[in-house]
């Protein structure tokens, strides 16, 4: 129950941060960090699969409304949510995920956390920038945008990890 409230709060706070703070960072055309991806990273392992997709869609479309890009972020978020179980399986620790663990550094260690957030963040930004560019940007520009924005987002994710503690 506590976990559900926590996730709903995280959903709201991340959207507000994204829309009111991170979308207003106007330093370079290469830096558009999508910190909402942290919501998808932090969802518990036992989240029902349909809920994973539906919440990803809700997350994407809400931020889309603020950015005047209906569909682009929701497409990206739903795709990443769909890939998440595969990624989790791919980087599974040798003895699997134990019950009660959450996808965070204190539970599964930093090396796992870095791998996991790296995959999710890079895929999210890459897909997002590809759809945004619709054939006019060359691939090198998309790649640079992905790398720079991902580094920023990952930094944000890791800072949050440092402050998260075991209940």
């Amino acid at each position, binding site marked *: 129950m506590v976990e559900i409230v926590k996730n709903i709060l995280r959903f709201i706070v991340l959207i507000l941060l994204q*829309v009111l703070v991170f979308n207003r960072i106007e330093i370079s055309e290469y830096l558009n960090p999508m910190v909402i991806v942290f919501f998808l990273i932090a969802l518990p392992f036992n989240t029902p699969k*349909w809920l994973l997709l539906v919440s990803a869609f809700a997350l994407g479309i809400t931020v889309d*409304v603020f950015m005047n890009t*209906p*569909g682009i972020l929701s*497409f990206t978020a739903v795709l990443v949510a*769909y890939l998440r179980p595969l990624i989790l399986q791919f980087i599974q620790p040798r003895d699997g995920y134990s019950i009660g663990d959450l996808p965070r550094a204190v539970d599964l260690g930093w090396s796992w956390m870095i791998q996991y957030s790296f995959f999710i963040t890079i895929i999210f930004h890459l897909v997002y920038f590809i759809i945004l560019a619709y054939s006019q940007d060359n691939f090198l520009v998309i790649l640079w945008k992905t790398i720079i924005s991902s580094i920023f987002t990952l930094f944000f994710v890791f800072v949050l990890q440092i402050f998260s503690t075991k209940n």
Partner: protein
Amino acid sequence: MRVFFTFLIKHHFTLLFLVLQIISFVFIVSYNHSQRTAYLNSSSYTSGILNSGITNIGAYFSLAEENKKLITENTNLRNQFRKNYKKIKVSSNLVNDTVFLQNFKLMPAEVIQSTVYKSQNFITLNIGRIQGVKEGSGVVSADGIIGVVKSISNNYSVVLPLINKDFKVSCRLGYSQYYGSLLWDGMQYNEAKLHDIPLHVSVHKGDSLFTTGFSSIYPTGELVGFVKEAKVKSGENFFDITVRLSVDFKKIRYVYVVDHLLKQELDSLKIITDG
């Protein structure tokens, strides 16, 4: 039937995924690449209020500079007025009692949100339907043209600026009078590309670009930018011209929405001609 339901339950993850992706795809296709009314955007009520609140806080810090700009603009306008007045007095040829029909009406607006570093940049203005903004109206500022109104709500409107890849405007070169279409290449917020200028035209660095007025969105002769560089690519018949935009999209604050009063008349005439 039971087989069907078992199938649904077994593959619900992938099926739901496909359904949501199709919905997103429909959104992308129907809203992002056209100038049609978009309901899901920052002109909507809540996002409008949030954005204008945040912008109001920031507004206090740039008041001094904005005042200075407004004073300069006022002075320029007054000067123009006096100049016009003199000319009419001097000219003796104006015998017929000419009544000048007003063609364009300007409405002042304030920018409450804008982006310059996204691939899809947008500007939100603090006026909308109630204040008389129409979809498809042009937006200009003291420095040059800004863009075109994409969608409106009762009190806000969203502008598709020059620095959006969906924007296109025809421009005339000041020196040679040749015209081409100006498009943003998605890179720097102060540069765009001018297309369709044939190689035999003499293009000079620093030459100014003006609107043609063909689209009946902007008045003819509004400043757009200056030629920064004109390159010749081998095997092509047209110049590759880089234009430095006259408007600094990072600084815009007060703009004017252009209402074309005779647009309807012009459009209906075009329809008749087109058959």
